[in-house]
């Protein structure tokens, strides 16, 4: 009796075999060129290829074998299913889509609830101004220890999953190979080269060429990184400069956080719009809830952070701060179990692909005309 995992992998292998023989999509992205080097398509190969896939959907629209053809090649959906399988396998646990959404919602509401229960109403709903105002509502120790627990646990879990994933897809590589390939992989990550469709753009919504999803993802990525930078800048201001939050408008934490928050919110809104309007035919429906959950968590974190900034000198500050911390908590507690796992695993898959590219970059004889 084959397990659901075996069935998902066997189906992806069946479809990818057609791709390896056909080769028409080789110009679109690294997935097909990487598959060309791994015609055996072992389970580990498929886990690697699935995480290398950026889900641009070009191969669906270009496919002469997509349904209703008897070969029924529907690679974006097949690889999306393998991706989810790989995250579950190396993380060791994956809640149901509904459970994941529930966890995110519960974590978001937990902090405001605790604030209402534990912080006296006259403090929580008072107006606080000037340095130390945030900690007047939620004590600094609670915030730091809460953050440490909420962040270190999930991030450690993800790190372990990454090590296990790399053992599956990169055990045959050497340290120097990895070191040489890291700059290439980093460039692929920051440019999202695989969302260029080989120069033609992606099929974001239908078979028309589009660069919208790539641009929106850039906004999300850079917005996210700026908010991380804002957090680090705030920690630096606190520990090195002795400053106390909230920081002035013209300060590194606020400028970075505002820019990042606006970019993140705009990017999330654009991705949600594209996803909402996109032709659902190439999608695996069961993977969609986790994608919406991540967009919701990121959007809520960005929106609540910006609201907190604007309203920080009003009586709403206390609850907004609690809500914002709740969304950040939701991001971290769902980190190993949701769609966010695409980021670390795709980074490793890009690294592995970059190593392969370097290995085969040696000049070779011209094959014959086809």
């Amino acid at each position, binding site marked *: 009796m084959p397990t659901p995992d075996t069935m998902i992998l066997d189906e992806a292998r069946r479809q990818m075999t057609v791709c390896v023989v056909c080769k028409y999509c080789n110009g679109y992205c690294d997935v097909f060129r990487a598959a060309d080097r791994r015609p055996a398509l072992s389970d580990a190969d498929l886990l690697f290829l699935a995480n290398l896939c950026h889900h641009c959907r*070009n191969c669906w629209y270009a496919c*002469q074998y997509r349904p209703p053809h*008897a070969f029924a090649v529907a690679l974006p959906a097949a690889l999306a299913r393998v991706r989810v399988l790989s995250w579950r396998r190396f993380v060791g646990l994956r809640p149901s889509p509904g459970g994941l959404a529930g966890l995110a919602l519960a974590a978001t509401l937990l902090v405001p609830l605790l604030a209402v229960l534990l912080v006296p109403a006259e403090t929580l709903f008072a107006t606080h101004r000037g340095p130390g105002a945030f900690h007047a509502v939620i004590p600094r120790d609670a915030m730091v220890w809460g953050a440490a627990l909420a962040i270190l646990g999930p991030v450690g879990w993800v790190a372990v999953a990454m090590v296990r994933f790399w053992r599956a897809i990169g055990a045959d590589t050497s340290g120097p190979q990895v070191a040489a390939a890291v700059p290439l992989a980093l460039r692929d990550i920051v440019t999202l080269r695989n969302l260029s469709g080989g120069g033609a753009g992606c099929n974001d919504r239908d078979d028309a060429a589009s660069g919208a999803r790539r641009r929106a993802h850039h906004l999300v990525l850079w917005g996210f990184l700026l908010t991380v930078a804002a957090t680090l800048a705030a920690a630096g201001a606190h520990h090195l400069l002795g400053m106390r939050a909230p920081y002035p408008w013209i300060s590194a934490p606020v400028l970075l956080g505002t820019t990042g928050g606006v970019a993140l919110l705009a990017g999330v809104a654009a991705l949600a719009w594209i996803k909402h309007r996109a032709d659902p035919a190439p999608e695996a429906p069961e993977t969609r809830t986790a994608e919406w959950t991540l967009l919701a968590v990121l959007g809520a974190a960005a929106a609540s952070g910006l609201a907190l900034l604007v309203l920080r000198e009003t009586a709403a500050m206390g609850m907004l701060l609690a809500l914002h911390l709740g969304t950040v908590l939701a991001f971290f507690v769902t980190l190993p179990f949701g769609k966010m796992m695409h980021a670390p695993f795709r980074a490793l898959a890009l690294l592995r692909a970059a190593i392969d590219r370097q290995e085969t970059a040696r000049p070779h004889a011209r094959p014959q005309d086809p």
Partner: protein
Amino acid sequence: MPAAIPSDGHGPDILVAGGGLAALCAAIAARRTGASVWLVDAAPDTLRGGNARHGRNLRVAHDGPTAHVPDRYAVTELEADLRRADPGADPQLLHRLAMDSRDVPRWLAAQGVAFQPHAAGALPYSRRTVFLLGGGTAMVNALARTARRLGVRVLHETTVEEVAPGGHAVLRAREGRAEVCARAIVACTGGFQANRPWLRDAFGCAADGFVNRGTPYATGRVLRALLDRGAAPVGHATHAHLVAVDARAPADDGGIVTRADGMAWGLVLDRDGRPVRDATHETGSARYSGWGRRVAACPGGLAHVILDNAGVARLGRRVYAPRTMADTDTLAQTLGVDPARLAATLAREGPAGGPPWHVLSIRPGITFTGLGVRVDPDGRVLDRCGAPVPGLFAAGMIMAPAVLGGRYLSGTALTVCAVFGRRAGEAAARHAHA
């Protein structure tokens, strides 16, 4: 009047029959002159594009390297290659094809088609052909989108049943038939490779073993109508582009991946266990069509490629895995041939490394048929006296036998479709405006 067929009193300036590359190019080119255009395709939208869905590259002349093709391939060189492949080719059409091929990548790109940069290194090297990014289906998507954007009226699941001089046509949709009067008709419906009775007429019972590699809508109905209306035939119904395909291939639309290989380093046996030999020992891409003809000549249109372990390793990844037999007796039983004679044949001519034996059964896969209508370089259909039939034009594989009647050179079919589709669309529009 069926609901699917517009009934606004009069037909379009140009009615394009077909849905492949020639049809799309003709429709776009005609529409760009301002003519009103209907594109009438028998296939549903999900299977649009004719055999262009399965295409990959176009053979084009060019004077120097471009982003999409390296080195140089002069017009004279392309013309000479085509003439060598088909000494009987129509010289005027050949010259037009070679000359116009130079502008094909630019023109298609202007209609939204993306080509693959050769520097990306993911292609086989070719100075003679440009590769479509994503293949023929991606090209069809781009052209269909452009045609719709320009205002071409696209009717799917609608068959052109009759065409007559002057631009009269009878269309059939699910709801019924309708007569349409266009100013000109451009016939781009290809050959008759999906028409079993016609194939049987042309190829005898060997046709029963044929697998159609492309669209199941290539019935040849418009080709027959044109010939019945006095169009001059070109080529021969008994010619076809055949390649050897896996016997398990789907009856239609198997495309590129069902193509069989391994014949050159295995032993090929016919249904009765007799060796089938290749006196030419071709190793280039010509081997595919050579074996297509050879297996078509086998009894029942069936043959078996017997490989040893080394042969299977050389084969690489296949959509259909070879069947493996532990010993010669099992092989004989599976093939239904005499074990002693099979053992003797294998000992004499078989691959040295077996058993175990690995078997790929193969059939002739038909890509296009070799009978067409004669046209002038602007795609005007000519009658048996060489005079244009008023209002009737043809482009693509329906007229390609005039230039591709011999050995097939890769990438030439799509080029014929693009060049003559555009020419015929423009000429038909001029005719309609005149």
